[in-house]
């Protein structure tokens, strides 16, 4: 028997992504990809209006720009944020970015460069992009649309592009205190680095997902947060804001088959 579900898994993840930005204060929020961007936008529209955002190019906006074709929507710019200024912001630590790396390891180290041997890689991806500098300078959260052992690898990632909490990688004179990896939002759960020595813990499971399933799809051992519960369901107000921020329903195309927010339920919207 199935029950109707008023929200999709993508919408649940947008709300979870928005929670990662809670309490950040007056910094630049960057969500890379549709779900992270909608998450950051939802945060600004609800619990964190002090966040700063751009048009994903070089202009600042106080009203997050809806994703996709803009139609009659005219952005209202409040300032300028060229790529050069974004780097200055990054190096000053005034940013929280949510990004989707290809691989993540138990230390939170991330890879966006290559899979396989570095000199003759099996897969060459984008390159390290801004990961080394972002990860060592400001808060980052991670987004994984397909939680499996290819994304959450055993051992270290193939090419450490973003720093993590691996003591072997840091010398005593390096400033490790400037980095923070906040949350990992996946299609199965939300995790953080709140365990001993920043070990990864499951904070909440999406409706219908078990800890054992998450563990089986992760290449390293996970901990349970003491108060591990179910990921918060989107409220009607949050769903309305998400619909306004995503008028073309691009969120429906981000996860394979656009599953319902509650495992086993059918989408009813």
């Amino acid at each position, binding site marked *: 028997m199935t029950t109707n579900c008023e929200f999709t898994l993508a919408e649940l993840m947008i709300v979870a992504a928005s929670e990662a930005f809670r309490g950040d204060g007056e910094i630049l929020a960057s969500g890379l990809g549709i779900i992270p961007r909608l998450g950051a936008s939802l945060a600004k529209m609800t619990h964190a209006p002090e966040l700063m955002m751009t*048009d*994903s*190019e*070089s*202009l600042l906006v106080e009203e997050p*720009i809806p994703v996709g*074709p*803009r139609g009659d929507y005219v952005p209202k710019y409040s300032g300028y944020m*060229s*790529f*050069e200024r974004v*780097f200055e912001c*990054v*190096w000053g630590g005034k940013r929280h970015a949510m990004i989707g790396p290809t691989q993540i390891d138990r230390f939170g*180290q991330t890879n966006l*460069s*290559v899979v396989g041997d*570095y*000199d*003759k*890689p*099996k*897969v*060459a*991806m*984008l*390159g*390290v*992009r*801004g*990961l*080394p*500098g972002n*990860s*060592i*300078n400001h808060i980052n959260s991670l987004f994984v649309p397909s939680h499996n052992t290819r994304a959450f690898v055993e051992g270290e990632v193939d*090419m*450490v*592009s*973003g*720093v993590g909490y*691996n003591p072997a*990688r*840091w*010398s005593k*004179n*390096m*400033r*490790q205190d*400037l980095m923070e990896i906040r949350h990992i939002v996946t299609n199965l759960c939300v995790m953080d680095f709140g365990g001993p020595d920043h070990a990864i813990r499951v904070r909440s499971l999406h409706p219908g997902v078990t800890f054992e399933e998450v563990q089986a799809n992760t290449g390293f051992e996970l901990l349970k947060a003491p108060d591990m519960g179910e990921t918060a369901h989107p409220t009607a107000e949050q769903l309305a804001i998400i619909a306004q921020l995503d008028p073309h329903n691009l969120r429906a195309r981000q996860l394979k088959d656009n599953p319902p927010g509650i495992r086993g339920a059918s989408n009813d919207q």
Partner: protein
Amino acid sequence: MNKLMTTAEAVAKLRDGMTIGFGGWGPRRKPMAIVREILRSDVKDLTVVSYGGPEVGMLCAAGKVKKLVFGFATMDAIPLEPWFRKVRQAGEIEVMELDEGMFQWGLRAAGMRLPFLPTRCGLATDVMKHNDLRTIQSPYDDGEELLAMPALNLDMAFVHVNKADKLGNTLITGSDPYFDHLVARAAERCIVSAEEVVDKLELDAATARFNTFERYLVQGVVHAPKGAHPTMCAPDYGWDLAHMKRYAASATQEDGWTIYLDEFVNGGEDAYQAANGGADAISQLPVPTF
């Protein structure tokens, strides 16, 4: 003073083995008319330094690249640059893969005639390991260990701008100048290509602010209308996704690169524009929003 030259004259200044930098960012304002001229030339063994877009992939496809210094290679709308990927996976090029911020730090060091600049970017990652980068300890009481990003000195830089004059004054009127000023400063010589070239710019104060680097950095000015195509040149025109898809397909097609060159590059710039629907059609390409 008249720095006007043709693309052929600009590319004739290149020598095998040179280190050349490109302005722009991914599929944005790349000096593609110059790149096409390089593709038609015999020059080889280049070290290419770029926030990479299709110019990187095309030069890789043509076998012109010995070494690539990069933070990424992407066409955004087609995230994985097809020829970069193919050549990189075959192990055919040397790479110096850098954080985007380290990259501009290296350009800045070169422009300021410094051997390196300190940064935290790159510490505790494999960027250190693969590039034999060294660290330096702060000489002050903090004693912090920092990465010493070496200068990225360029023999030649190519930058595409919206407007220039024959003296080498330039205007970048799109909303972001990217890091072209740093690319120009890092180079022994810089040649700009421009959508529009006039004898002498005579501007009001507000427009003059679109000038982002000095003319003493510019040794050559090439008139190359639609010269950034298929990348975008805001606000004049957007990127050409159909063309980028056609180019991407050449990486998987049998003899794809030869066919691409025959169809678009070998015939020169006028034929190139005609093969892409003409200059008017390129002008109509909408600047994408995100």
